[in-house]
Structure formats: C-alpha cells, structure tokens
C-alpha cells in the first residue's frame, strides 16, 4: 500500500510525467494519452460551464422583477434554451465521465490506457465539432425552442437555427457514445491481474453503469434529432400534426434518451462520492456490493420510467400508471446508496478536507433532490407541479446540488493526481461553504414558487411571485462567487500549489500507487491486485454488524 506520510517540503515532483513528456500544441492536439485528453475535456467543459452560467445569471437578473423589462421575450427564450443545452449536453454529460473518468478509469484498473486511445481522441474532436455547431448557433442568434425541442414548435414554428443546433447536439452525442464504448470495453478487457469485478472501485462501477446508458440511450436521441431536422428541413410529417404525425411521439422518443441521460449525469457523481466518503472516513465502504449493484439497477430501471415527463401530455391513463409505478422503483437504489454512504461514516475516522465537505453537500442536497423526485413521480401531485418551478428546483437539486458538487469534490480530490500539486485548502473550504449556501438560497425558494404555480420558462410573472424570485436571484449571485473561486485557485495552484506527492490523502486504489502526476504509461510496471477494495486500516480486525 501507500508509503508513510512525508513532510510536504521533502516531496518532489517526479522527473518525468505525462505533462512534461513532451511539449507544444501538437503534443496536446494529437495526443492519445487518456490523461491529456481528460485535461483537454477539462478546459473545454469549463468554458461551457461558464458560458452556461452566464446565461443563468442573465435569466436570474431578468426574473428579479415581475415585468419582462431587461430582455425581450425572444431573447429571454433563447437564454434559457441556451442555458439548458450548454449545461446538459456540453457540461453535465461530459463532466465526470469525460474528465475524471477519462483520467481515472485506466489508472484505477491498472491499465496503460483506454482500450481505444485513437477513438478517445476522436471523441474529443467530435465533442469540439458539436460544440462549434452550438457556438455557431449562439453567435448567429441562438435557438428558442427550450432544450427539449418539443414539436411542432421546433419543427414548424420558431424561426431560429434549430437544425444547426440539432446537428451540434447529435454530434456531441456521438462523442458520448464513443466514450461510453471505450469505458465498457476497457473495464471488461483491460483490468490488471487480480482486479476482479468484486474488487473494482465503486467509481468504475458507476462509470460503467453510466456508459451503458450512453451507448443504449444516445442513439435514440440521435435518430430523434435526425427526424426533427428532416421534418424541419424537408417538411416531412413524422411529428407534425398537420400531416397526421403525433407530437407526443417526439416526447416519447426524446425522453427515452433524456430521462436516462440524467442518470448519465448523476451516476458518475455517485461514484465520486463513494470514493471520497470512504477515503475521508478511513473505512471500507458500507455494503460494497449493494452500492455497486445499485448503480447497475439505476441504469437499467432508468430506461423504463421516461414517460413520467409526460403525465399531462396526453398519454393514456393506463400508461401513466405503469410509468409512475416504475418511476418509484428507480428511487430505491438511490436511497440504498444514500444510506450506505451515511453508514460508511459510522465508527470511521472522519476528517474534513474540501472533497469531504463537497461529499456532505452532495449527500444532503441529493437526498432532498431525490425525495422531491417522488413528488413528480406521484401522478395526482404531478398534475399540479409539472412544468412549474418545482421541476426546476428538483432538477437543479439533483444536477447542481448533486452532480456539480460531486464534480467539484472529485476535482479537488484528484487535483493532486492530475497536476501533482495541492489546491489551497483554506480557500477551497470557503468556496465549498459559499457554494452550499448560495445553492440553497437560489433553489429552495423555487420549490415554493413551483407549488405556488409559477410555470417554468416564464419571461414575466405575476407580482406575488416576486419575493421568492428576488431571494433566488440573490442566492445565484452568491453561488456565482462559489463557482468563480475554484477557477481562480485551481489555476493558481497549477503553478504555485504545494507539491502533493503520490498519495496526499493516504487513499487506497491503484491510481494512488503511481506518482503524481502519473507517467505517460501510468505505471512503471503492471500492478497486481491482491487486496479487497478500500482496504483501510489493514491491522484492525474486521467486524460485521449483525
């Protein structure tokens, strides 16, 4: 296992690692090293996160007052559409898988690289091409269909560049398919000797489950968007009611991908939390196999619940009942995970470094986000809160309170591995606290707003909703600080941070057994795994709670 802690002053950067292996722009743009590709993704998605964040800030500013006085309604409609598209397709979906997953999957399983390094680089390029389409759309005037592209509005009514944007998302989708494919093959075929399925880190299990969704769901989004573009471009009638099409079918096909897609976003985040909680509790994760299999269960169940987005869309009552029942089933594995993380801390040795603070934030906020999902899965209640701010609040509790927290936690946790240097702990704790406070102030009022009946995507709203909207906007400005701070100190620490050493957290896992930053081929010699995962406190007796 890991070596004993050395005083920070004695640590030195390894002489040769993946960052200084060679230099120059070509060495980055033509790299096949999964770690460098992860860094490329990191910079790309950070850009899109802040572009999406800018749109969010503008939305919140507009909603400060009831009248639509800051932007025209067309501009506002474009803002929330572009916010959604940027955040979902160009930040959340690639966030943990493409950055942390790319960096860590081969390291954690003791492989030299992913199974298909060229395809890995290709998927970054495909992502960038998709992103360029999206940027081109933004520059030429944006899209105002909402990120859901509901027909017939998107196919026949709006006058913006829907096709261009659809092509952009479609392209980014293929990037996600290839990433998922790469992970699945790598996990199956590239594991180090001795690393059985029962010994895989939970982060790998979670990414594996998310990859399943990527390869099974994304193609359906692709064909749906192709049909939408054909319909808009050639006026053929597959979803257009004028030509006998059924607009509700578009919703079925769209949500067949887009509901599981939220599990693409959250599952890898859950994997990150499993790693962090065990490490900072110095304890083996509670119920390893239950946490592992719940990831797979979420991936599978996630595919059979999509029509809970359509309870008031005109689907049959019978169908609504089926989908509601199945939707409750998907809540169970998530609950199992939360309880297991909590139980992991029991009789542990808990410390409070920044990643752990984010993990606390994740567990708390995800619990609220998950439980408010039950409101929306419940048929009678969903009639009232569907398409209101309640949905917005629920979604952001899961995606920002859950996923972004996990992403930031993971970034802090593995930052020493990625860069070889530590981030400034004090500032990071401050940022985590600010994010937590800002987040709750932004999104909690939206639950109430939603139940009060404020519909989503409203440019102007009745006056009685103003107080809560002002609170939410105030929270958003705090949240913005919480997100900008890490950007600054991460950049700072890349040059000036303390040298981390191979294993600053004294964590288990193969990625901590190589130097920080790792060498280009990850390991000096192929590691052989002989231990159970999360083998903390090897000297102590193992006890089992009855």
């Amino acid at each position, binding site marked *: 296992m890991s070596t004993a802690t050395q005083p920070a002053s004695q640590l030195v950067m390894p002489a040769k690692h993946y960052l200084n292996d060679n230099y120059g722009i070509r060495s980055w743009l033509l790299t096949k090293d999964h770690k460098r590709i992860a860094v490329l993704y990191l910079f790309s998605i950070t850009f899109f996160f802040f572009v999406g964040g800018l749109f969010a800030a503008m939305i919140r500013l507009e909603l400060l007052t009831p009248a639509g006085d800051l932007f025209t309604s067309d501009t506002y409609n474009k803002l929330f559409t572009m916010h959604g598209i940027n955040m979902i397709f160009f930040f959340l979906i690639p966030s943990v898988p493409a950055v942390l997953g790319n960096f860590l999957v081969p390291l954690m399983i003791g492989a030299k690289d992913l199974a298909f390094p060229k395809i890995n680089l290709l998927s970054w390029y495909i992502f960038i091409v998709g992103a360029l389409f999206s940027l081109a759309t933004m520059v030429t005037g944006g899209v105002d269909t909402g990120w859901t592209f509901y027909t017939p509005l998107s196919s026949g009514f709006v006058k913006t560049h829907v096709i261009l944007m659809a092509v952009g998302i479609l392209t980014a989708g293929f990037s996600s398919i290839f990433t998922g494919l790469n992970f699945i093959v790598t996990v199956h075929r590239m594991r180090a000797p001795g690393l059985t399925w029962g010994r895989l880190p939970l982060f790998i299990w979670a990414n594996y489950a998310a990859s399943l969704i990527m390869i099974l769901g994304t193609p359906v989004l692709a064909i749906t968007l192709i049909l939408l573009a054909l319909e808009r471009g050639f006026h053929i009638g597959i979803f257009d009611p*004028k030509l006998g099409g059924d607009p509700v079918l578009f919703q079925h096909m769209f949500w067949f991908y887009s509901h599981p897609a939220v599990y693409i976003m959250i599952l890898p985040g859950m994997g990150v939390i499993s790693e962090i909680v065990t490490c900072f509790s110095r304890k083996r994760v509670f119920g390893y196999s239950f946490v592992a299999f719940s990831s797979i269960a979420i991936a599978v169940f996630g595919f059979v619940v999509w029509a809970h987005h359509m309870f008031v869309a005109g689907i049959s009552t019978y169908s609504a009942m089926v989908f509601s029942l199945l939707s*409750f089933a998907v809540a*169970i594995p998530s609950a199992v995970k939360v*309880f297991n993380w909590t139980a992991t801390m029991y009789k542990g040795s808990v410390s409070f470094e920044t990643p752990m603070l984010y993990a606390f934030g994740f567990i708390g906020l995800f619990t609220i986000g998950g439980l408010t999902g039950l409101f929306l899965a419940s048929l009678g209640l969903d*009639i009232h809160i569907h398409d209101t701010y309640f949905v917005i609040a629920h979604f952001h509790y899961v995606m920002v309170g859950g996923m972004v927290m996990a992403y930031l936690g993971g970034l802090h946790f593995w930052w020493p591995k990625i860069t070889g240097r530590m981030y400034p702990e004090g500032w990071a704790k401050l940022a985590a606290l600010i994010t937590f406070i800002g987040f709750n102030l932004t999104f909690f009022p939206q639950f109430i707003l939603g139940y009060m009946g404020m519909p989503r995507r409203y440019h102007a709203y009745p006056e009685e909703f103003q107080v809560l909207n002002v609170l939410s906007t105030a929270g958003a400005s705090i949240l913005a600080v919480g997100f900008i701070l890490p950007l600054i100190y991460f950049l700072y620490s890349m040059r000036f941070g303390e040298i981390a050493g191979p294993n600053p957290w004294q964590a288990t896992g193969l990625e901590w057994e190589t130097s920080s930053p790792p060498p280009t081929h990850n390991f000096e010699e192929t590691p052989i795994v002989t231990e159970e995962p999360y083998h903390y406190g090897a000297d*102590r007796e193992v006890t089992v709670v009855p």
Partner: protein
Amino acid sequence: MQYKLPLFPEQASTVAGPVDGLYLFLVLITTFFSLLVGLLILFFAIKYKRRPGHEAEQIHGSTLLEIIWTVIPLGISMVIFVWGAALYFHERRPPANALEVYGIGKQWMWKFEHPSGQREINALHVPMGRPVRVTMISQDVIHSFFVPAFRVKQDVLPNRYVDVWFEATKPGTYHLFCSQYCGTKHSAMIGEVTVMKPDDYAAWLVGGKVDGSLASEGEKLFQELGCITCHRADSGARGPNLTGLYGRPVRLNDGRTVIADNNYIRESILNPNIKIVSGFQPIMPTFQGVVSEEGLIQLVKYIETLSLQQGEPLNNRTSPSEIRDNEVPNIQDQMKQQNAAPQPLPGKKP
C-alpha cells in the same frame, strides 16, 4: 409596501384539498428523511472525528440493514404511488353531469366557448359548485391549461381534443397559465378564471350578447356545408344518420368498433373515409382546411345535441357523455330551451 409570502396557492377546487394533502405527506416524508440523513452525518462527523489514537473500525456491511432500507422506502413509495394514482384517476374522469366548455389554444391566447354561445378570450367564467369539463384543442403548437388554484393541468394538443375537469369551490378570480412552452409570448399566454356563485353565473350567461348557441351555429354550418344532403334519416341516405349517434359505439366496415366521441366526429369530418361506418361507401369529401377549429367544435356540439332530441330512455345509452345534460335540470337546459332546437332536417341543399 407589504409583501406576503404565501406557501400555497389558494384552494379553490374540490381536488385542491386532496392534492395539498398528498403534498404535505410528501413534504413530511422528505423532511423526515432529509433530517435523518443530515443529522446522522452530523452526528457521525462529530462522534467519529479523526483524532490521534482512534482508528476506524472496518465494517463490511450488513445484509439485514440493506434489506431494511430497501424494503421501507419501497413500502413508502408504494403508498405514495397508490395515493397519487387514485387522485390521478379521479382527476382524469370527468363526472357525467359536468358543464361543458370548449377551449382553443393558439399562439398566444386562450379562446373559450360556452355551449350557449358566449365567447371569451383569455378569460373563463365558471359557476361554483358544479363540475366543469373543458374540452380543448390547439390550433398550432402544444399549450397547457394550468389553473394553480384548482391544481389542474392538461397539455392542449393540436389535432386532438383533450379534456380537463374541475369543480370550483370558492368565488374569485384565479390565474390561468399556459405551462407548456409555446414560443415568443409564452409568458403572456395567461388569463383569468372567474368563479361565480350560481346566481351570478346565470345572470352572466344571460347578460352577454350572443350570436347563437354552439349547437345552432353548428346547425347553420351543417346546412351551409351541405352535410344534410347525405346525412339524412331516410333509408336512401348515402351517409349514416347522425341522430342518436353521439357517444354510441359505431361498427366500422373493417369490423372494429369505435365510440362516436368528439375525436371520432372531428376525425370523420377531416378524414371521413378512414373509419367508415359499416354499410356505407367511403364517398364523403374531406373538410380539411374548410372548417375552422371553432366550426368543428360547433359541428361536434350540434351532432351531440342531435342525440339529445331523441328522447330515448336513458338506460339504452352507453356513454356517460350522453346522459350528462339530461340529468342536470338547470342552466344548461334553460339555455337549450332558449335556443331553437334543431328541426327534422329538410332534405335540400342550401
């Protein structure tokens, strides 16, 4: 200036109470579990804070606990499912005696038509204490009819009638929102629902200036379009007799049976020869692009009233929609008497 910070919209319909009940139950569940998890984390974090001389105890897990925290959430969620589903089922079944109103959504306004002929834009007047069923269709994109005070919502689709019902319990004026994003002025597609006491409502009905009831307008259209040339009662008619048709099962010539409801009648006007009544030839021309959505509603309503003129015994009827008007001896019947009932159709073309 005084700000109020209400946590609930007003309760102004019969389902508002039950929906809020379910909501409160869920809020309770959410609070309980969030606090449970939050407090446990806090407790563990303090109790097992890392300190010298204390090491973590390696616990692998407990199958018993796993089963407990799988089964308990499963049980709770099944309770929520059944509760929510029962409510949904109730909200999806309009009572037979509901007052009918027709709605059309278009970018970016709501139009409502009352059977007696009153038309409203972005406003809807309904009586208190009586179920109201709004049958809606969209002229362009998908809209959604949402009245928070009633806790009802229904997407309004193009090319297909959908309905929503509520029974208002409290006089007042309430928000009507479009809650499905529908383009530029989505947030301006709002209106007001005014709930009136029955007497006030009756006065309101009589007060407005009205061209003619929906059914009588529909009858005019029926004659203008020449429908009566074929749809006659005599045996030599080329089209099926429409009297007594509404709400009935109809046998088609491919062997299937459909209920002659709003959607079937609308479809039969626009694409008449797809579902042909058994024993007839597919010869009717299409009226697509000829009749507006308003006109279609009037025709549908007219055909519905044709069934009411028959005076058949009620127990012969199959669909609740047929029974509804006969059972309710109030305003709507008064309205019917005011508006000339359709006469047996003369067999000539206008």
